[in-house]
Every structure is written in C-alpha cells, then in structure tokens.
C-alpha cells in the first residue's frame, strides 16, 4: 500500500507539473514490483511445497472469477459511456439548434464546439487483422492447455510462446495504428471513447502478455502438473476475457 501511495503521489505531482513526480512514480512502481514478486514468490513456494489442498484451489477459482467480473464491470462503464454518447448525448445536441446551429449530429463526431475534421478509424484494416491475431492467440493458449493436460510439455511451451508472440504483434500493430491515426484523445467524444476503450484494453493485453511470460518462465522451470496448474488456467481465463473485450471493441468502436 505504501507502493500505491507513492505511485499516486508521484502521479499527482506529474499532474501539477512538478519535476520529481515521474521519479516518485517510478520508485512506487519498483516497490510494488518487489512486493508482488515477494508475495507471488511465497505463494508459489507454498504451492510447490504441497501446502495447498483442493479447498484452496477452489478459493483461487472463485477469487479469479470475481476479479474478472470486476474487470468486466470496469469496461462496461466505458462501453456505457460510448452507448450513451452515441444514442443520447450526440443526437440531443443535434436537436438543440439554438445552441449550435447547423451542427450535423452524426457519429463519429468531435462534437459541435470543436470544429475538428478527422478520419475515423476503419474496421477492415489493421483492426480486422488484430481481431484475427487475438482470436488465434485464444486458440494457441487453449492448445497449450491441452498439451499441459496430456503432459505434452513441448506442445505447452510452443503454444505459450505463440500466444505471447501474437500478443506482442497485436500490441505493435495497435501502436502503429495509434501513430497513424489523425485524431487524438482530444478529438471530442469520439477520440475520448476510442482511446480510453482501446487504451485500457491495450494495458490489459500488456498485463496479460507479462503474466503469460511469467507462466512460460515457470513452465521452463518445470512447474505445473497435468492436474495442478491453476496459475496457468487463471492467466488463460484472463487472456480469453481480454479477447472477448476486443471482439466487443471491434464491433462497437471500429465496425458499427
């Protein structure tokens, strides 16, 4: 908690343009990292030592499921903002000619007051390729899981490596798309919803890829058996969740 406080205080200082802010954030992030490594390290040691019984395993399953549910609600609020803006806020702005006469309230829009011209992101370029990439990564992680269950360690390793690679390619393409877009976070409600939704999704892909890498490291170290590998399953659940969010993003942010 000290770590989080440090991160947050650093961020506060950044927002106030005070120069030590970024360093403070970095220190906080490092403390958090050390804490997490220590924490998960001892959980892994206890697990390897065989301290965990089936009741603990079930607890982890409940815990992870509800954590993913809380993430679902986090994205639900962002999608809610998108739907509200598209179906209520923007059309209502078009119906109030006294305020902004001549405003053409058609999505995508940067709003009536900004007078910004931009090309919205197209669905069938990079985003459709990214959809294929993430869907196939969902397949590879499941294939790796089959490998683990059948004690085929080679299949497990190859599956994991491919999943991580696909995740990284996704992120590179996403970054490329961000750099070539001619609209920004400041482009009215379209830019705001676009970048917050895809941005938070990107953060989750990054986290997922890091978690998969940790799992790969543990696989290489010989951890997990065909019956006991909850950490692997938890990360793959998380990965599938990130997949599903992307599908919704693709449909509602890019396509429709």
């Amino acid at each position, binding site marked *: 908690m000290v770590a989080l*406080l440090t991160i947050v205080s650093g961020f506060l200082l950044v927002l106030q343009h005070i120069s030590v802010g970024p360093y403070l954030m970095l220190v906080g992030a490092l403390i958090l990292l050390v804490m997490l490594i220590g924490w998960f390290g001892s959980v892994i040691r206890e697990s390897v030592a065989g301290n965990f*019984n089936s009741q603990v395993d079930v607890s982890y399953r409940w815990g992870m499921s*509800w954590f993913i*549910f*809380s993430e679902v609600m986090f994205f639900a609020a962002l999608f809610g903002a998108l739907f*509200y803006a598209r179906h209520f806020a923007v059309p209502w702005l078009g119906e109030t000619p006294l305020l902004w006469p001549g405003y053409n309230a058609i999505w995508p829009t940067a709003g*009536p007051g900004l007078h910004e011209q931009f090309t919205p992101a197209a669905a069938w370029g990079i985003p459709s390729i990214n959809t294929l990439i993430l869907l196939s990564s969902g397949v590879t992680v499941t294939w790796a899981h089959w490998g683990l269950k059948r004690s085929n360690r080679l299949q497990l390793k190859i599956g994991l490596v491919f999943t991580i690679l696909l995740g990284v390619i996704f992120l590179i393409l996403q970054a490329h798309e961000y750099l070539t877009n001619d609209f920004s*976070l400041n482009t009215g409600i379209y830019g705001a919803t676009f970048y917050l939704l895809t941005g938070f999704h990107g953060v989750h892909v990054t986290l997922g890829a890091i978690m998969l890498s940790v799992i790969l490291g543990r696989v290489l170290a010989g951890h997990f058996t065909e019956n006991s590998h909850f950490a692997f399953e938890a990360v793959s659940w998380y990965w599938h969740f990130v997949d599903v969010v992307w599908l919704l993003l693709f449909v509602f942010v890019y396509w429709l």
Partner: protein
Amino acid sequence: MTTTATLDTHAHARPRGIRRWLTTTNHKDIGTLYLCFSFAMFLFAGSLAMLIRAELFQPGLQFFQPNVFNQLTTMHGLIMIFGAIMPAFVGFANWQIPLMIGAPDMAFPRLNNWSFWLLPMAFLLLIGSLFAPGGAVAGGWTMYPPLYIQGGPGYDMNIFAIHIMGISSIIGSINIITTVFNMRAPGMTLMKMPMFVWTWLITAFLLVAVMPVLASTVTMLLTDRHFGTHFFDAAGGGDPVMFQHLFWFFGHPEVYIMILPAFGILSTIIPTFSRKPLFAYHSMVYATIAIAVLAFTVWAHHMFTVGMPIAGQLFFMYATMLIAVPTGVKVFSWIATMWRGSITFETPMLFSVAVVCLFTIGGLSGLVLAVVPVDIQLQDTYYVVAHFHYVLFSGAAMSIMAGAYYWLPKWTGHMYDEKLGQWHFWLTTIAFNVTFFPMHFTGLAGMPRRIPDYALQFADFNMISSIGSFVLGASQILFLYIVIKCIRGGAPAGARPWEGAETLEWSLPSPLPYHTFEVPPVIK
C-alpha cells in the same frame, strides 16, 4: 489450506506491538483494525458535521466562507460513507463471517491485510486534500462536473483516494464472497447460513459490480481534467448528465451496500432478544436478493430534475416504488419476529427496535421522494437531507452501534456497562430526532441544502437542529468511553451472555481464542 499454512507459522512466533497489526493476516485482528479505523473516521466526519451545524446555528455567515462550508459538507459525506459506515461493516464481516459459518479464517488472509491497509493510505490523500491549494472537493460527494473539472489539486487527490479505496473494497468483497462460498463448515448449506452472512454475500456482490464502475467514472473525470478528453463537455459531444448516469449507477447500489449489512445485524439481534427464530427466513433471503437486483434499475431517480424523457422518469419512479415491497417484507418480518416473543430490552435490542422504527420513517420519506412531481419540488432541499440521515444514521450507523454492543462481550470477554449503554442509546435516539426531524419541515418549506446561510423563517428549526446535533455528537464520546471501558475490563461475559443467541460464535468461549474452528464444527 492457505489459512492453516499461514496460521501455523503465526502460532509459533506472533509478532508483538505495531508489527503484529501491520503484518496480521488474522481475521479477528483485521476486523478490529477496520472497526477502530471506522470509529476514528466516524468521530472525524462527525466533528465536520458539528462545524456545519455551528455555522447553521443562526442565519448569516458566522464562521466559514461558503467555499469552506461546502468543503465541510462534501468531506463529511465522503468520509462518513467510505470511511465510517463501509469499513465498519467490513469490520463486522471480518470478525463474524468466519465465526458464523464455522471457518478458521477468511479465504485470502494476505489479501485481507492488504485491503485494510490500503484504506489509511486512501484517507491520508482524502483528508490531506483539505490542505491542498484551493482546498478539498466542495461540490458535494457526488463530484458532478463541470464544477469538478475546474477544481484544484485537492480534486485529483480525491480521485486517487477513490481509486485506492475502490481497490480495497473490491479485494475485500472478493474475499468475502469466496469465504462464504468455499469456507463453510460441512453441513452449513446456503439456506442455513445466518442472515448476516447472507446480507454480506449480496452486499459483496454489489460492491464487486459497482466499485469498478465508479473507478471508470472518476478516471474519465481525471482525463477530462488533465488530458483534454470531452466525456462530460457538450462542446466535444459529451454530456455532463452522462456523468450523473454513470455515477448513480454506482451510487444507488452503494446505498444498499450501506444498508444490507445493517439488515443482517438486525436480523441477528431481534431474534436473540425476542427468543424466537427469525420470522420467514426464506422470504428474508429472497427479499435481500430482490433489493440487490432492483438496485441496478433505479439510479436515475436521483436525477429527476436534470432532464430526461418522460418514459425514463416513469420507469425510474415505478422501479423505485417497487423496492418498497422487499423492504416492507423485511420490516414486517422483524415485527413478526418480535410478535409474542419474550422480549427483553438490553442495549443492542433497544438500538434494533429504534432502527426498525426510524428506518421505516426514512423509507417512507424515500417513497415520497420517488414520486416525480414531488421530487422536483423537494430536490436539494433539507427534506432530502432528513430522508438520507434517517436511512443512513438511524438505519446504518445505529445498526452498527447495535452490533457493537451485541458482539463486544464475545470479542472482549467483558460485558459493556449496561447502564451507560442505555444512556448512550436514549441520548443518541432523542438527539438524532431533534436534529433531523425538523429538517423535514424546513425542507418542505423550501430551505435548500449545501448553503451556509438561510432565510430568517428557518431560524428556529435550524437552531433546534443544531442543538440536537451537538448533543448527538457529544453522546458519541460516551460511546467511545463505553467501548474502551469494555475492552479494558468489566464483568466476565461467559460463552453465551445472550440466552436467545443461536449462531455458531456463541458456542466458543469469550474472549475468543486467537484461532477458532481449526477443526470445522459439525452442523446439524
């Protein structure tokens, strides 16, 4: 089991002093930490309320400029909600849920430690924001833009405080849900669980569902403030009303988060002192679930005056009225439990009966406010202030007091001072009504809230309210004294000081040993 793995090491070398409390993973220790923290925040936010009432003692500006006054009302609300009421219930959950379901500890003891220690950090930021340039948030605990977008660095501290306590709440709730689903003693089926456990299970579900929404929403505020987004700015195609929809989608379930555990405490205490089982247990469970489901469909009744289609107003009005049905089921069930019971009135029962009466007043004034045309008249008047203090103070806070008197003998091994407890009860109940009942009248007469000055016609009622509030505040010092006295000593409590108490914790000795139910009890 994780619990035994960690508990065993603790049993051998348990740190003493401050390290014990910093590193503890014991549900009883963490429950105590939550309760102490919440008591401190209760007294702090209560003293802010005393300052508010001091300013409102007479018309005109006496002590504070309007901006400072508004900071006081905002911080009073935020700290009471997130610092006093919610952590108090989490404290009860930590102490009682493992005991009531026959579990050795919570499912995730280490996460439990983290979720508590996040809270002091969050409140360091929140209370610290009072001293930031430009002061703390002054636009009310609801944080509405566009005012919120224009505030100083104190507002950012507020956002981050909410992020941190959101993380704390989510982790705490996941822990509670997992504990209830997975740590019950053999034979303790879901429909045999005490009502308190049921209400907390449903509360935890609400928390996991809506705290992330609040986190998202304040993140949008943050990007609007600093990164040039236009979520809540009409010039960019956004809408400040959208904030209100998002906020109240969190905010209304939050109201039930603060009252459902109180219902659980009442449903535990009333059967004990009526010496009868809870009337219609199954209906109570279903009513609680119904309240939780309906909680997601009523949020816009907080927004009748901001403008929405008539169909929307009608939907939210009827949905809100529908909530009175399961709530009514609960009130009738408590009354039916008392009916023909052999009732004794020890302090916990006095508080519980008072809660049933006073909460019903708050519920009925809520029903009045649900009617759109009436609400449009009463929006932002003292009638609303009276309404939510009847549900939150005489509903939630007084249930917490009832629960504290009820379980203190179990936790400390000493009986509290019954005479002083009854003094505390009568002082609190009378002073509470003197403070808040006149607000119904000033509100109906049109006195607006969140303003430090008022028209002369409201002077008498405001003076009565202020005097009541000072007595109310002072009597909580008596409560603090009673609690400390009870912790330090008193008549030994015995395993089961209340003869009608049936739940599992009373089968254990008082004070409770550090580790309980290492071998699960057998449930008939």
